């Protein structure tokens, strides 16, 4: 993993974090905000798992376990929020 790529990733994660924070700060709520925030969280989690944890070059099973955790967790949260928005 090149260090340059790690640096770019780091900056991207920082920006994404500020973005999430801004959505909350500006008082956004409801379907669009929840969906946006969860998508950002998914992307951030995905980057961390693939490149910081370095599972990108590991067999499918291990990646599936951890990425699956991320997707399942966010999906269930989405479901619970969606039920609350109805």
């Amino acid at each position, binding site marked *: 993993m090149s260090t340059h790529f790690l640096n770019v990733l780091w900056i991207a994660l920082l920006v994404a974090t500020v973005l999430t*924070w801004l959505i*909350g700060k500006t008082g956004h709520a409801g379907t669009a905000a929840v969906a946006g925030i969860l998508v950002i969280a998914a992307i951030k989690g995905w980057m961390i798992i693939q490149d910081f944890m370095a599972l990108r070059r590991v067999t499918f099973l291990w990646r599936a376990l951890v990425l699956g955790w991320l997707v399942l967790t966010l999906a*269930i949260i989405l479901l619970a929020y969606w039920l609350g928005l109805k």
Partner: protein
Amino acid sequence: MNAQHHGHALRPYPPGDLAIWVFILAELAAFFALFVAYAFTRLKHLALFDEMQRTLDSDAGMLNTLLLITGSWCVARAVAAIKANHVNSSARWLLAAIGSGVGFLIVKYFEYGAKFAAGIDLETNLFYTFYLSLTMFHAMHVVLGMVILFFVWNKTRRGGYSSHDHHGMETGASYWHMVDLVWIVLFPLVYVMR
């Protein structure tokens, strides 16, 4: 080791010791259960959760996210450095990661301090039960991660790891990334989304 950089062969096991991965998966399962419990309890008490969430300090939450991401990045750089046999540089990156952990705890100290000063505790209401259980449990993981990183740093600076042997460092690094990963879900869930 070459295959890892250039080839297409997939490694059979994740970086670090398998034992830590079993532990990581168990921890992820615990946090999964906590997150799901939070989301569905909120569903039953929407008004309370939305109202109480506004009393949280989302600036502190954001700052802590930045710190943990930075800590994760430092550890990733430390692993990259040791793979290039840059022992001193690797040790410095580890120290920086521990530093970000210290920063996280300082922010938490002020955040909790404000809450406790307002007389809030685990039993104030259901939202605060969740907020405090989740974040304190996570903060203890930060502490554990720092303890692990401390041992890894100590061994690194004594020349215990090299480009050939950094199994132990990857073990500690994997745990630290897990602590970051969990927070990536926790922050929007508890501080931001409504």
